């Protein structure tokens, strides 16, 4: 199959589907006779990505695969078309989500301990309804509290391919080094380990 034709078929498929397409799904579009390798699909995707550079749509790779999307820079015009105005998320919701994303799996108790306030059931419900978090199990302690983790949908929604792509957490500093650090003009504030690597993802 010619590369241009392969590109056009992938383009048609990616635009036809309202969900991201995984490489495997793209491969399944073709019959065995058509003999399309994974490599040639990836090459065609790269070509499409280059082709759409700077246009009103872009081809992005996220956790579940590839999808065409309208870039951020066109949101002002596109959102005028939308009947429902996109909602803003409360700080309580975002902080709860951040704690789940960076420290998963966590219980509600873990979140409350760090935030210093109660987590409303409504927030957890909203996050579940958005399919950003799910209960992955229960911690083996009295009461067996639910353990929350983020979903693939969460990664997709935030344009991430995996958890390691989350913005890095700022470092914790040690109080005992305070005097030394302050004297040394407060250097090295952001060079310590970040937690993101601890959160494994099974992509």
């Amino acid at each position, binding site marked *: 199959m010619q590369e241009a034709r392969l590109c056009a078929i992938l383009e048609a498929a990616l635009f036809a589907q309202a969900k991201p397409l995984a490489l495997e799904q793209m491969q399944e579009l073709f019959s065995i006779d058509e003999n399309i390798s994974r490599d040639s699909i990836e090459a065609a995707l790269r070509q499409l990505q280059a082709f759409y550079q700077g246009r009103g749509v872009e081809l992005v790779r996220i956790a579940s695969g590839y999808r065409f999307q309208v870039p951020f820079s066109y949101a002002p015009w596109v959102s005028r078309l939308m009947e429902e105005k*996109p909602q803003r998320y409360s700080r309580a919701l975002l902080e709860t*989500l951040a704690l789940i994303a960076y420290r998963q799996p966590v219980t509600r108790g873990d979140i409350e301990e760090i935030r210093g306030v109660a987590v409303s059931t409504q927030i957890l419900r909203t996050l579940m309804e958005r399919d950003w978090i799910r209960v992955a199990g229960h911690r083996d302690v009295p009461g067996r509290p639910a353990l929350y983790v983020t979903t693939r949908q969460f990664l997709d929604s935030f*344009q991430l391919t995996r958890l390691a792509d989350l913005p890095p957490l700022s470092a914790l500093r040690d109080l005992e080094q305070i005097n030394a650090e302050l004297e040394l003009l407060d250097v090295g504030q952001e060079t310590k380990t970040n937690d993101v690597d601890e959160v494994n993802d099974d992509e």
Partner: protein
Amino acid sequence: MQNMSSTPQTEMPFALVHGRAMTELPEDLYIPPDALEVFLEAFEGPLDLLLYLIRRQNLDILDIPVAEITRQYLSYMEMMQSLRIELAAEYLVMAAVLSEIKSRCLLPRLHHDSAEEGEDPRAELVRRLQEYERYKQAALDLDALPVEGRDVFQAQVDVHDIHPARRWPDVDLAELLLALQDVLRRSELFESHTIGAEGLSLRERMADIVQRLQEDVLLSFAALFRLDEGRQGIVVSFMAILELVKEGLIDLLQAEPAGPIHVRRRQTQRLPVGE
């Protein structure tokens, strides 16, 4: 509140706090009383409020002037209470924690190097503040990411005249056999009333087939059936053939798809025991 009574600030009437607000509280902490409730909602809890108080003065978390921060925190609490705004329990707990830290800081340290006195009383609070602050920042970072449906939009095009391909369910053989097993069991119930006379023995038929195969090396599959025996006879012959195949006594051969099937006896074999 009992927590408050241990601090000097509680003795101060609200009016005085009000009067000294310009000098002793960060300016933007003075808020018209009717807006205080809104102000409270702006904080995500006592840690958030404390961070605010610290950051307002460009202080490092690691170097909190506990006495000063505690004083500010408590006067803020007091304002809320005098306005009868109901405070979440977490705020009151924090007031107690701050007061305790403050009093421990005031105690003279007798032995600087002893393990007992080693820990800075502020350590736990500083740890919590830092921990909270990094997630507060992470939440802001998350919010800054382009979110689908808010900042970016999945591209979609019309596909109304393209219809989904037909796909058939998969079935495995075991499933098919289980279905057959069910139907046979049911049919046994039916047949026990109506049949019982024909008396065709499966073993007899098996022996019969093997007998015939000794004479001809290769027989047509169809030749093993006698139509005059009716359905029952055909079924018995068929089952006999299947049984013989299973026991490895005969082979069924089909040269091409849907082509004629032939039956052949295997080279080494034993006669099945007749009934």
